[in-house]
């Protein structure tokens, strides 16, 4: 479906991409210990005896983490495995106190699911693609080494040790950097809707291992490399591109891609080898004997299902259908749960203030949000989360437009003043005397003056230069300091020119 190709010296190459995403589970406590999980706490302040792997300590599953994984699985339409099991992945490293990571190799909690991506928001119907998800399993995160604290020693921070991760493994279904980017964005959006991961890639709570291989279009899969711990959507796309190009150049030079783990260097926009398959660890996976198999009952799964909010695809369909928004607007408003929440609050406030059903004011709210408000916030370097205006405050502003108190252009001024002063719309309109006038006498007088002062243009209009209509309207509005009701101005100008 994708026509993305790498142009090599010997012809075209197709790139094949699979992502393994590690998403930190939103939970107050770690996967197998009671420790807290806040980001940015003092080193080693969120470490229990279990996280530090003291002798005789035992893991006990935190069912809230399990529940979040199940909710995530249901959200991507995946099979929930009511019988799953934890395995130990054994290796030595200073950030891994137990000497093994508790993970789920053989029997993951979530099986096959899928995620639909949209590659072009302007043409959603023709640019959709379904990416398969092979599995989701839960596992422990490792701690963190700090190399900048001492000239010859490394320090270990175990705050992250034992924090629950979901590893979400895609099928090798993506064929371009754009698809990889769209998949990761969509996955992050779903996780945020579900509330199972905050999706903050810059804080490391979501990171991707990017598997890339190249092949002649339609051939068998080539040998893949895995680039570890890529921490932004942009970098994932960059990794795909640079790694695919590297592989093509390598093959065309007569070389062979070796299965290996690589690291991405964003400063140089290239990947480099970390370790090859030959020196890969033998992880000696085996079932963790400290834990019984994880058995979920129907009630647990049903509760998880019932607790899910409306998810982005369903919400988008509703915005297009019931609310009558354009596909583009529906796409943009539902892409991030925070935007959708803000929009829905705005919609409710707007409808209430005007005493109208939401369907009737949805377009007004959507247009204003997308074209006016985002721009205004952007100028201030703010976003919805840091907006000084609440959805309720914005709803009142839109109601003033809706009921004819102010015009759309005055509304822009009012918005600026709201952002400046923090005052509400009605107060500003009152104080600044911005109320729209529908006083036909005053408007008629203004129109008459304009006609008189521009007799030449009246002549030209009557001679057929109809484009001048806008000029008279504009002049009238100007004379009325923007406060005249535009519809009445239109009517009266038309009448005067007739």
């Amino acid at each position, binding site marked *: 479906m994708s026509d993305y190709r790498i142009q090599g010296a010997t012809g075209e190459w197709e790139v094949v991409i699979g992502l393994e995403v590690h998403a930190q589970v939103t939970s107050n406590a770690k996967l197998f210990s009671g420790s807290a999980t806040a980001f940015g706490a003092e080193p080693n302040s969120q470490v229990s005896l279990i996280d530090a792997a003291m002798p005789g300590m035992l893991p006990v599953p935190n069912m809230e983490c399990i529940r979040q994984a199940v909710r995530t699985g249901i959200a991507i339409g995946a099979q929930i495995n009511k019988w799953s099991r934890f395995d130990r992945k054994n290796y*030595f490293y200073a950030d891994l106190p*137990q000497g093994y990571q508790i993970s789920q190799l053989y029997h993951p909690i979530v099986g096959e699911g899928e995620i639909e991506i949209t590659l072009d928001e302007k043409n959603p119907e023709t640019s959709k693609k379904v990416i398969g998800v092979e599995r989701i399993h839960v596992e422990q995160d490792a701690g963190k080494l700090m190399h900048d604290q001492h000239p010859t020693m490394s320090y270990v921070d175990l705050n992250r040790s034992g924090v629950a991760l979901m590893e979400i493994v895609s099928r090798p279904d993506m064929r371009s950097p754009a698809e990889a980017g769209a998949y990761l964005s969509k996955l992050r959006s779903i996780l945020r809707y579900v509330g199972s991961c905050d999706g903050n890639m810059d804080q490391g709570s979501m990171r991707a291992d990017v598997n890339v291989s190249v092949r002649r279009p339609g051939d068998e899969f080539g040998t893949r490399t895995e680039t570890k711990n890529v921490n932004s959507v942009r970098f994932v796309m960059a990794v795909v591109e640079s790694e695919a190009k590297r592989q093509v150049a390598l093959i065309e030079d007569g070389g062979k891609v070796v299965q290996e783990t690589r690291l991405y260097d964003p400063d140089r926009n290239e990947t480099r080898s970390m370790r090859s398959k030959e020196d890969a660890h033998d992880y000696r996976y085996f079932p963790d004997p*400290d834990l019984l198999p994880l058995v979920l009952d129907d009630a647990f799964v049903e509760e998880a299902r019932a607790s899910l909010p409306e998810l982005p695809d369903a919400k988008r369909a509703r915005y297009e259908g019931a609310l009558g928004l354009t596909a583009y607007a529906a796409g943009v408003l539902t892409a991030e749960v925070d935007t959708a929440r803000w929009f829905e609050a705005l919609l409710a406030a707007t409808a209430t203030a005007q005493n109208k059903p939401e369907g009737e004011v949805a377009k007004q709210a959507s247009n204003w949000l997308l074209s006016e408000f985002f721009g205004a916030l952007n100028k201030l370097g703010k976003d919805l989360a840091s907006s000084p205006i609440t959805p309720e405050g914005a709803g009142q502003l839109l109601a003033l437009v809706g009921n004819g108190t102010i015009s759309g252009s005055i509304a822009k001024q009012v918005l600026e003043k709201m952002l400046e002063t923090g005052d509400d719309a009605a107060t500003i309109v009152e104080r600044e005397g911005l109320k729209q006038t529908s006083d036909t006498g005053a408007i008629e007088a203004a129109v008459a003056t304009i006609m008189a002062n521009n007799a030449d243009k009246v002549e030209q209009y009557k001679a057929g230069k109809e484009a001048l209509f806008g000029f008279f309207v504009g002049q009238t509005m100007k004379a009325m300091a923007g406060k005249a009701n535009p519809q009445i101005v239109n009517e009266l100008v038309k009448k005067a020119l007739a």
Partner: protein
Amino acid sequence: MTNLTDLTLTGIRDGVAGGDFTATEVAGAFNAAVAEAQEALNAFIVTTPEAALAAAAKVDADRAAGKPLGKLAGVPIGMKDLFATKGVQTTAASKILEGFKPEYESTVSQKLWDAGAGLLGKLNLDQFAMGSSNESSAYGKVTSPWRRPNDTSALAPGGSSGGSSAAVAARIVPAATGTDTGGSIRQPAAFTGISGIKPTYGRCSRWGIVAFASSLDQAGPMAHTVQDCAVMLEAMAGFDAKDATSLDLPVPNWEAALSGDLKGKKVGIPREYRLEGLNAEVAKSWDDGIAWLKDAGAEVVDISLPHSKYALATYYIIAPAEASSNLARYDGVRYGLRDLPDGANLQEMYAATRAAGFGDEVKRRILIGTYVLSAGFYDAYYTQAQKVRTLIARDFEEAFKQVDVILAPTAPTSAFALGEKTNPLDMYLGDVFSVPASLAGLPAMSVPAGLDSQGLPLGLQIIGRPFDEQGVLNAGLAIEQRAGFSAKPTKWW
């Protein structure tokens, strides 16, 4: 006045409760006995006379104040040095944990203190509970208080709970905790003429016990009598939310329901345990046991446990596999020994620390375990062993459809001399009768059955259904009542 150190656990409990003597007097007597025997027996790694006296003082004060007393009020005990004890060095008899003082108390030891017991000290053991003779301790071998007549050679107290068995047998503690992974309570109990029970897997919390093989490790009591074991097990057992494999079942009052009357009960005799070349004295002792249980009213039934012959091999794959992973945490990074040669990197620090910290037997098992879990060998060893383990458990399930308990020898011989077994395989073969119950997670106990021709104790093992510690204890009691075992080691230290 009675010689306090000759008393049983229940004798002390009743005497303290009845005011025949104070808990402080008892603790003092045992503290003195411990000190006197330490050099000769080396049963303890550390002694804690103050802790024993402090616990005793509290019991005496509680009694004086008329407060209710715990199940073990006034009983000082020895604690196998595999249980984490807050502020008291906990080593698993390994150099790698030398000087390690936990900030926490194991669930089982805490329950014992809550029941009114006091700590005499931390008992020696095979390093990380790996061994059957207590020779693998980094803190020196334990010498059994038993000797052959007119022979001063030092004998093994069994293992891995060898400090526990030696101390109880020498009457320097009235009771001790043990742990049993493949027989580490039962075999040392048999070697030293005492009783010990490994309860159903999950009865006692593993939280705070240094792990050897998680799916097999179980704590249990070692004491002079079946009743003592019942009382102490009641104090040790119980559900613990901190151990995901803990059994969420109420703890029965085993002591109250003790009865040596086995009328209506069936006892199985597994024919596969009649090994070719079975020691004649062990065979005779087994026959004695059969006769005693018949005398107690039980019907004796011949049963088959067809996969028994694979139990030892299965055990020596699963236990080292788990151990190789469980012991990975001893890496020199956070606690315990760190050997950091000049200029060493992380990998070199691991190698140096673990080479210096672990003993030979521990290293051997880590190597075996690492090997059987390795890619390419995993299915042939580990997966296969798990399948056989299931079959062994099924053998027992089938057998327990016909019988209530199973009677077998505890060990294939009486105690051997320290240094006598130099080939690790010979040592492993000594676990042949004890590992099947471990693999199946079943309650099993050893009770003294008599002395062999060398004057050394022999034990008989009773294996029960899951959760049926009562059935095991009752059959044990029936044997105890008929064996009339009253032999004690002659004090030579």
